[in-house]
């Protein structure tokens, strides 16, 4: 079974930043076509598909340009390199996102936000348009769970709300909104949202699929 990446292929602006280092790009692309990268990421795309290999090389290019001194161009030897979160959250796609730190932390293995290339691809794959709803719900729950206790308690909601509204609501209003949210979504009456509650609520939220995606 071969896979298909969920990432959207039609982000033209990305290519513009890419063209500045054409020599490196060509080298990477050649390596991909020579199956060196394919053997590593053989699950991601079929070797003969030019567009998918271009896609992967584009993602790799983006990853590389975040930290050119850290990320090698050649992945045949399966290097272990991770980019620190401070560099990733400054990507143009994530820069204006109030949850950027949490997003990066949720996809990192160590929970601190250091992403390897695998995790980088994973992140944009889940956040693409074609990822299934259940998968997005799982990661959305992780993102909103600030204290990582598998429950969205009131403090988590308050932090989310403050990040969303940039502290334009008064504390009483924040309190009221959090109360109402928990009241609406909490099914088992424990005053916080477990994953089942969250999933149940988010599948009925009509805007979720259209807002929870990033284009790269």
């Amino acid at each position, binding site marked *: 079974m071969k896979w298909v990446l969920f990432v959207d292929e039609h982000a033209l602006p990305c290519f513009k930043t890419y063209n500045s280092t054409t020599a490196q790009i060509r080298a990477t692309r050649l390596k991909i076509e020579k199956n060196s990268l394919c053997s590593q990421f053989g699950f991601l795309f079929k070797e003969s598909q030019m567009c998918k290999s271009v896609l992967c090389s584009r993602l790799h290019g983006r990853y590389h340009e975040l930290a050119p001194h850290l990320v090698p161009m050649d992945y045949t030897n399966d290097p272990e390199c991770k980019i620190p979160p401070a560099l990733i959250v400054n990507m143009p796609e994530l820069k204006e996102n109030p949850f950027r730190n949490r997003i990066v932390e*949720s996809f990192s293995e160590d929970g601190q936000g250091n992403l390897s290339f695998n995790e980088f691809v994973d992140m944009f794959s889940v956040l693409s348009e074609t990822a299934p709803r259940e*998968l997005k719900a*799982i990661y959305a729950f992780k993102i909103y769970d600030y204290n990582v206790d598998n429950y969205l308690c009131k403090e988590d*909601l308050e932090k989310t709300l403050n990040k969303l509204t940039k502290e334009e609501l008064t504390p009483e209003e924040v309190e009221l909104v959090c109360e109402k949210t928990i009241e*609406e979504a909490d099914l088992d009456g424990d005053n916080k949202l477990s*994953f089942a509650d969250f999933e149940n609520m988010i599948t009925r939220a*009509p*805007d979720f699929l259209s807002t929870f995606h990033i284009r790269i």
Partner: protein
Amino acid sequence: MDIDAVFHTNHSGIVTTNPLLDQLPSYQSLLYRRKVATDGSKRRGSARSRLSSSSSLKRDASTFSRQDKQKVQTLQRPARELPKTMEEKRAHKKQMDAAHQLSSWGQWSQNTRRCLKRLKDEARASMKSMQLWRGDIHLIEGRFGTGIQSYFFFLRFLVMLNFIIFLLMFSFVMLPIIVAPHASGNSTYSQSNDSVCAVYPSSTRRGLVLFREQLTDMLSGEGFLEQTYLFYGYYTVDRIHFAYIIYNLPLAYLLATIGYLIVSLIWIVKRSATGFKDNMVQDEDRFQSFCNKIFAGWDFCITNKNAAGLKKKSLSYELKTDLEEERMKQKKADRTRRERCRIYLIRVILNVFVVGVLCGCFYSIYAATSYSQQAQMSTVKGNSFMDLLIEYLPSIVITMANFITPLLFAIIINYEDYSPAFEIRFTLMRCVFMRLASIGVLLFSLWSRITTCNDKTCICGYNHQQYSCWETRVGQEMYKLAIFDFLIIAAVALFIEFPRKLLVDYCNCGLVKWWGYQEFAIPQNVLEIVYGQTICWIGTFYSPLLPAICTIKYIFIFYIKKVSLMKNCRPATRPFRASSSNFFFLGVLLIGLSLASVPVVFSIAQINSSKACGPFVNYTTSWEALTSTVSQLPSGIRGLLYILSSEVVAVSLFVITCLGMFYVIALAGAHKRVINQLREQLAMEVRDKHFLMAKAQSLSGAKPPHFKSKSRSRSGGSPSYHTSFTSNFSEAVSLVHPPPHSSSHV
């Protein structure tokens, strides 16, 4: 099987009972309900002992098989959909490949399936990339969010709809006429015997025609344009004799008209089907609830700093509005009787005022149309600007009325003391009504002039002295409306929004800064283009090239609006949700379509077609083209068609549709009840869990653990989340098994 008692097996497989489990809250409430129903609580003790181990084993087996099934389900899902890291996904894939050692045939079929699936995906992706204006809309989405993006999607849909309507009319009506000389077709023209009605004074200019006059003609659809394929009157072909078939053009014209109305209806309904479902779900569960705003409110596509700041502001505005609504609800509940009477009185007075305003507008439109038509009849063909103004008078009055009334409605609604969401919707409804009814009034005034003659009854069935070719006149009115609509949109963008932006940028006056940039008000813009589309639908019968004109018009409007949006506008503070907006746009469009089909159908069926021009000269009404063709069909088909169009079939179809509707409504009600029951069951399960954990603590005497089970937190890998409630259920069930050991779970 009697499941009165809660039982389990110990390790040797013998049924034992546990007094603990009888104390579970869910079981207690079940018993209570059953006691209330049947009063058979005595059965509990005896039933327990009677139960055999086989049934308990079966129950065990069923729980185990449930866990196995879940494992198999996880295995069967494509690895990419699992919430695991890359390494785990690869391991999973390896496992799956190892599990499925297929024969060569199996592998080949699997490969072909995969290839086909990939082909389908690629085809879909390439179709998507060929969509019109993808890049532009993508840019708009990034800067202004999904609400405004939905407006542009709607505009694109209208462009495609108009293009399809044009193709329909062109291929069935114009193409045969154009192709006839080249395909050795012989066209016969329709001649009318009736001399009085068949007089058609030519309206082309004679002598030297100035360019200015030609421009006036272009704008008003008269003069040289009247004798072109643009208008109904020019289609005088009756039959075209090709090599093997005789092409009946009047029938084709009529059927193409009905066809485009039906095609529009089906396409709009299909498009709104998904939006409707979402809207129904929303209405049931607290429309636009807090959860939706907090968890699905932030648009992750936003990359622009200003847009992000704006989004935050709009989100806080929305939340404040929602809190306000809650307060309003509270206030409403607390209202005294006296206050309620006062508010109702105010509302009645204001509604009467609104109705008065509407009547005033409609009367002025009627008067303007009558005056304009009268003036066009009486004066000789002049070429001054005043004449053009008089021709465009109905359009001008309609546009002015549609400009003033929304402002008026917005002011009035403040005094009516409704909740904010209802205010928006009610104002919109009023504006929609105003826009679409103004076209109706214009058509009504035209109709009254066409069908009233100086003497009591009209000889030809219509006013042949003033309207020798009335369809062309109606077509011209629609053409003028469409052109004027486009000119107004362009003029507003150029002469109002652009200077406003310049003023705000370069003038430092406080008042001007407070006035700010133009807001891109989505509802008003949508109403504008729905109005244009309604005109197109009405006018296509009388002017077959109108859809092409509208397609080009909408293409220009797209670019005008896009440029105006990027340069001159700021997003509205009152955000428009993308999910509900799709349904709103298509709903208003449907209202427009139903309004548009009324005059077209009425004029086809009731008003006599003009005898001086057009394809229906040989028939009394346009509909007669169809009936005369049907009467010439072989008797079997004719009989069938008569039966199909009789009242019997219509009534039975109606009754069957009603029955189907009631069935679906009943089904929906049943589903709702099931959902409520499941919800209650969920709550019960958790209460059971609490109870059991408390009991376990007290039994084992251990220190009360944190209820937030920290042991499941990050342990190097991402925690695996179960994606359905059944997993939690199986967890709960497994907790039912040996309770003394439950302390190890904690």
